[in-house]
């Protein structure tokens, strides 16, 4: 077709194009590979990872396990994986009239070492394929975390494309599966309940919500930073989130309590609002609460010669949230307000140092300090980065300076 005239070429090319089109179209029609209707998928809303030999004491639990098991060529039975699956209730045509208020879920579980293998094997228990794009939370039991560290547990979830990166990570000291089986009073599916309650960290500094999800955890592990995972506990039918579990290079280090968490929130400037309670200046034993609204926090690393120290300047603005100091004390007069401000500042400072020392005790850097140093003093960082966690960080000093201003005192004196 080299020596064809123009028009002829036009025709020829059209023909060829048509040919290509037909071929492709037929090729397409031959298989709509990935078409899978929405209602044909099982919404996995939450995942729980336990140690294989956790729980399961009673008889039927035992043989249940034996069924959820499968012959595994190599590796041992380490983990017990459970999925919380949404139960679809068909909405009848007449609309919300017969829609049920609560969305119910059920739990499927299997045992093995590789998450992926378990996943595939659990397909033997369900009638539709799992679908992970809407996972909300991953609950890890302390046992599982201690066993192999964090990485084996979450690897699948950040390797697979189906997973969304906003999955919330949680850790519990009890059995994680129980938390999946827990039905929230609000009637919303358990996974979403957990995820949403974690979203509230902005208001509740007792939760390390600023590292809520898989993405941050992955980042932290990649940067060899400390991973902080919120802790969730289930007492018979109350789920409470509070406190933090610390992972250092994937190894479980320990929990820190709410107070320390709050302190962390302060010095990593990640809280939006907080309640700081102090004792009344003149009535000991009575409580007065300061509601933090805005703050600017500045953590700076200083290197003077060999030794490294940090200064933390915090300016807080807020209201007088609650004062149980009785009528006679007058929140109007400035002296009083001044005093309160000082006390609050003191309190915050104490809180920060408390948290900081806990971290130093655990020889775990919450992340901010190393990052600051790396960012602002790269040379110093180069010098110390090998033995930062064990040698340098524990005897780095932190000098907080807090400045509180109370903007208004609420609607009543």
């Amino acid at each position, binding site marked *: 077709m080299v020596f064809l005239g123009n028009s002829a070429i036009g025709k020829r090319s059209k023909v060829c194009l048509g040919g290509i089109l037909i071929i492709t179209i037929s090729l397409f029609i031959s298989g709509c590979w990935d078409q899978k209707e929405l209602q044909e998928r*099982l919404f996995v809303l939450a995942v729980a990872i336990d140690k294989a030999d956790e729980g399961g004491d009673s008889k*039927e639990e035992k*043989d*249940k396990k*034996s*069924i*959820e098991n*499968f*012959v*595994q*060529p*190599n*590796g041992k039975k380490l983990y017990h994986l459970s999925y919380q*699956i949404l*139960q*679809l*209730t*068909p*909405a*009848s*045509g*007449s609309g919300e009239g*017969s829609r049920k208020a609560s969305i119910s879920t*059920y739990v*499927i579980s299997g045992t093995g*070492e*590789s*998450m*992926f*293998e378990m996943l*595939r*094997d659990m*397909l*033997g*228990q*369900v*009638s*539709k*394929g799992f679908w992970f794009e809407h996972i909300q939370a991953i609950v890890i039991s302390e046992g599982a975390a201690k066993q*192999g560290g964090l*990485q*084996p547990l979450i*690897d*699948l979830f*950040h*390797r*697979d*494309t189906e*997973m969304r990166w906003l999955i919330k990570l949680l850790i519990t000291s009890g059995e994680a599966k129980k938390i999946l089986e827990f039905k929230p009073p609000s009637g919303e599916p358990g996974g979403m309940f957990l995820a949403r309650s974690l979203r509230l960290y902005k208001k509740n500094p007792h939760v390390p919500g600023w590292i809520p999800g898989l993405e941050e955890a*992955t980042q932290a592990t990649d940067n060899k930073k400390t991973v902080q995972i919120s802790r969730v506990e289930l007492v018979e039918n109350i789920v409470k989130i509070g406190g933090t579990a610390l992972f250092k290079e*994937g190894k479980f280090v320990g929990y820190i309590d709410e107070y320390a968490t709050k302190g962390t929130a302060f010095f990593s400037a990640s809280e939006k609002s907080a309640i700081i309670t102090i004792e009344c200046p003149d009535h000991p034993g009575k409580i007065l609460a300061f509601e933090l609204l805005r703050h600017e926090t500045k953590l700076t690393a200083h290197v003077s010669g060999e030794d490294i120290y940090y200064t933390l300047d915090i300016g807080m603005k807020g209201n007088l949230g609650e004062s149980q100091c009785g009528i006679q004390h007058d929140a109007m007069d400035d002296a009083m307000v001044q005093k309160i401000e000082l006390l609050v500042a003191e309190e915050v400072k104490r809180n920060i140092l408390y948290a900081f020392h806990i971290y130093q005790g655990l020889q775990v850097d919450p992340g901010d300090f190393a990052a600051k140093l790396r960012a602002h003093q790269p040379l110093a960082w180069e010098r110390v980065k090998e033995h930062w966690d064990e040698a340098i960080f524990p005897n780095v000093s932190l000098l907080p300076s807090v400045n509180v201003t109370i903007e208004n005192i609420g609607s009543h004196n």
Partner: protein
Amino acid sequence: MRELQDRNFVLAVAIDKADEVKEVETFFQPNGTKRYRVSLQILKLASGGEQKEETKTFIKSNTGESIFEMVRDMLGQNSKSLWFEHIQVIVISDAVLKDVGLSEILDFFKRDAEMRSRIKIYVTSGKAQSIIEFNPPSKEPGGVYLANIIRLHLKNVHVAGSRTDLGYTIQYFDNKSNILLPRIEMADKVVKLSGSAVFKKDKFIGYADEYAVAGLKFMLGTEKSAVVTIDSPKTPGYQVVFELFRHDTKLTPHVENGVIYYTDDITMYGNIGELQGDTSLNDTLDPEYLRILEVAFAEEIKRTIYYADKVFKKDMKVDPVSRFATKLKSHEPNTWEQVKDQWDELYPTIPLYVSVNVSIRNIGNHK
């Protein structure tokens, strides 16, 4: 002609040994013994979309020898006539299979015109009736749920479910080949499909575990997608998972001066599905490491296949689904002519040489 709503949808059938006979659920029988206990799972018709009651189905059962007779007798227990055109599953307990051939049991179903040939057949070691009494957590009717489980065999390498419904089973009967049926087990509130029951002709031999089934699927190339786990080469004690999504498998018989042997050439493409253990040590972004993994995976797959081969050759002495026989018949017809009558003895002695080649396409979302 009868209206739809006047029929009883039979969704699942369970066949057990007639152990204890409730005198209501039976009938006087001139000849034969009370051999089977047949239970039918029947759909409750609920109007519209509301899911008031917990279960959607109820069970009727009866004992006798002729299944047809029992079914007819069961009309005595129903207000509406039974309707078999929507049967989804037949669950058979191996207690029955121990002494009766599969074909005798399935005879009624293959004879009756109402039966659809896509009925799934499962084998269980426990009571079959309890399995069809199971009501699934997702509020589907039990029979449908059970039938749909096997649809996922493409992804679940532990289930051999490619051609195991009534139609194919009967087809296997007709050309006297061996049969493989998926195995289903139940413990309270959990039903699981894994492994498979092996039949020689129609005689029940035993169960093959998941690992053997996986090996078999690899060997015959019946899997669409599978996961292969190995111990991570760099960080022992942790696992690396290979997710297979495309493969081509060629099982070819060879005859050299009277000696029959099979070769199995497998090429597999897939992703790294999961990599436990420290990612800084095993760096999936450098090609050499991928090479190592590929070799390791190939080894593992080979091992699986040989395991399955051992199970079927040594332990059971069954040519699974007579695939080897058919291969030989189609490729080397005249050899087949010579060996076909002593094939069953011959088969366990025939060697199989496997060569696997794995290529990793993707490493996933994260290193």
